């Protein structure tokens, strides 16, 4: 009933933020837009909400063109990253405001506001004003005000980015199960790729001018169509080595242009690369596929082993980041925070070359899909 369609949407002329964008979000779908800051994610939401007008294109909701409707006539509810709460009203009244505007009966308003407040764990502060609650609590109030309305489209702009891990994980689980979201089309904007991958039914990766790739979490992470998508998803970001392909004794190898590091190319990849006549590529390998090999540990065939010197070891929460130098190149690996590595320490890293990506050095297109 309430499928959201975006057709040929344009915003901006000389340097368009959004250039000829097409997108369909189904009813009940949770669509997540992820991209770097300043790329125009919020602008997209503002266009759908009617807070900005497009230069071209149409926004169609449930078959009706809403592009020319004023914001208040669009059945759309939006949360803002900057909260936009009424400072003189209590948390309760802020959440209730969309319902008051529709003149719903008092009892129903109270019921719906309290349900939402309990869900978001702000029912204890319902009488306080925005100035008397913390940043995270303000964000939840803003989220509550969106959830309480009964729209056909939810637009959520970084709704949980300022919250601490514990509440963020609780709310994330709720986004998976909230019934209210399964009846409408949702567009959720975030800069956090892990949040995007775990929440989205589909994910749209936004780059210059619009969506660069749309797909399920597995598709965008494991089969990035471009270098930009591969670099944007993942932390620490994917290792990219500017390489020249050459054949040695009939075997295809990738030679790093800035160092003497060479990497063998897996059979399956080699065939496709040869067919495409590729020579100059960006070789990409995610840090998770580079592992430390302990002394005396057996090495399986698919691992290419290199001797390295540790240049940085940073233990984070559940994992650690290990940067190491080998043959003049720096590579980043994911490791366990439980084992410490000192700067200058010699280690052996195993690179799982079967998991490598090859992008065209000029166009950035994935050559092995």
């Amino acid at each position, binding site marked *: 009933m309430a499928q959201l369609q975006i057709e040929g949407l344009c915003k901006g002329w000389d340097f368009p933020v959004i250039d000829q964008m097409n997108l369909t979000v189904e009813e009940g779908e949770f669509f997540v837009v992820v991209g770097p800051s*300043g790329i125009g994610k919020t602008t997209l939401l503002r266009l759908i909400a009617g807070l900005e007008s497009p230069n071209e294109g149409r926004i169609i909701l449930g078959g009706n063109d809403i592009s020319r409707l004023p914001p208040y006539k669009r059945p759309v509810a939006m949360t803002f990253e900057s909260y936009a709460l009424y400072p003189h009203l209590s948390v309760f009244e802020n959440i209730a405001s969309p319902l008051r505007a529709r003149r719903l009966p008092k009892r129903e308003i109270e019921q719906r506001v309290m349900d939402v407040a309990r869900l978001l764990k702000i029912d204890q502060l319902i009488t306080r004003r925005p100035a008397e609650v*913390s940043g995270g609590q303000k964000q939840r109030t803003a989220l509550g005000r969106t959830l309480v309305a009964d729209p056909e489209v939810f637009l959520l702009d970084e709704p949980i980015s300022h919250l601490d891990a514990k509440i963020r994980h609780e709310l994330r689980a709720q986004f998976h199960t909230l019934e209210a979201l399964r009846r409408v089309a949702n567009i959720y904007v975030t800069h956090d790729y892990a949040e995007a991958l775990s929440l989205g039914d589909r994910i749209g990766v936004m780059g210059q001018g619009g969506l660069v790739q749309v797909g399920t979490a597995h598709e965008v992470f494991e089969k990035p169509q471009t270098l930009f998508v591969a670099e944007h998803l993942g932390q620490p970001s994917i290792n990219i080595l500017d390489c020249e392909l050459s054949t040695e004794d009939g075997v295809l190898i990738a030679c790093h242009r800035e160092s003497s590091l060479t990497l063998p190319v897996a059979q399956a990849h080699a065939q496709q690369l040869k067919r495409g006549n590729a020579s100059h590529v960006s070789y990409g390998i995610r840090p998770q596929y580079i592992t430390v090999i302990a002394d005396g540990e057996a090495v399986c065939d698919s691992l290419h082993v290199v001797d390295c010197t540790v240049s940085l070891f940073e233990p984070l929460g559940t994992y650690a980041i290990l940067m190491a130098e080998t043959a003049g190149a720096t590579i980043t690996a994911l490791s366990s925070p439980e084992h410490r590595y000192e700067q200058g320490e010699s280690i052996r890293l195993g690179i799982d070359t079967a998991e490598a990506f090859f992008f065209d050095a000029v166009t950035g297109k994935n050559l092995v899909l």
Partner: protein
Amino acid sequence: MARVTLDNVNKIYFSRRGDVHAVQDMSLNIEDGEFISLLGPSGCGKSSTLRMIVGLESVTSGEIRFDGDLVNELEPQERNVAMAFETYALYPNFTIEENLGFPLEVRGISKQDRKEEVHRIAELLQISDVLGQKPGALSGGQQQRVSLGRALIRAPAAFILDEVMSHLDAHLKFQMMIELRRIHQSLERTMLFVTHDQMEALALSDRVAVMNEGRLHQFGTRDDLYHAPANVFVAGFIGEPPTNFFTARPDESNGALTLLTLDGGTRFYPSATRAARIRSHGADQYIIGIRPQNMSPIANGLDTSITAKVLLNEYSGERSTLTLMAGENRLQAITHSSDRIKRDEEVKLYYHPDNVLVFDVETENLLT
């Protein structure tokens, strides 16, 4: 350079609608040149603590000292601390170059020196290409870097950074963390970082002060907070996803001491030292804590496990988070994203007995 000491500091906001005791008996000793973080959920009092150190908020009781000198009554500008804010607080009608150079201009530094310093800092923060623009033309992340740059340029005795990375995307955040680390190592200045993001806190600081409801719960290194969390709050707050908790009673029917959850469905084997500690403690109930990353569907040589049913498998690229039910208890575990575990599947989750944390039910403190 400064050693910052807080001694029994309290902050009470008096109001007609009920006083708020925002900071309670806070004592903290920050060594000269140390990088520490104040970490806690929103509303825990970390911003109030910080504002008292800077001098933006009066101290209700207690003492704040810089290098042993009492600063309670000093004005912010007399304290020689620089602060970067979550809300950028940039001058909208000045260019980025002017915004960055302003703290130097106020101190009467020559135009040429100012320019050099501004360009050095801009280079460091990767904002050289926007120096001629005004804040309104910049994205949130860029504005935040300008705000940070303006604090760094003053070269004060102590830097205070208030949620300065919260608006940066993951990519930039990671770069900035490494940058900040490097800046700290080269400047050797005392840095105090306030954040709700534990990854930032753990990655950046030498020690982390974990606060909740106005109180300091633990002040320690990453390893302290992970392996010996002082209480249930710290264990639940540090770690992503949060630690799993179970209420359980000791059971010695099979000879060895085990902990059986109240629904009787799940049995945990604590380490020998903890088992001995439980015996000497002698309570009839305990809270068990075990971290999601310490429970794995892959045995890896372990033989202690629990059985649970999968509710949700959240894929997030490098890893997946499983949400499961073990009897009546909900828990989470982290797996490799290549393990395609389906909903409603029964899995065995293996753990090492050393990773079973045991807390007192009443005080919620760790049994050490």
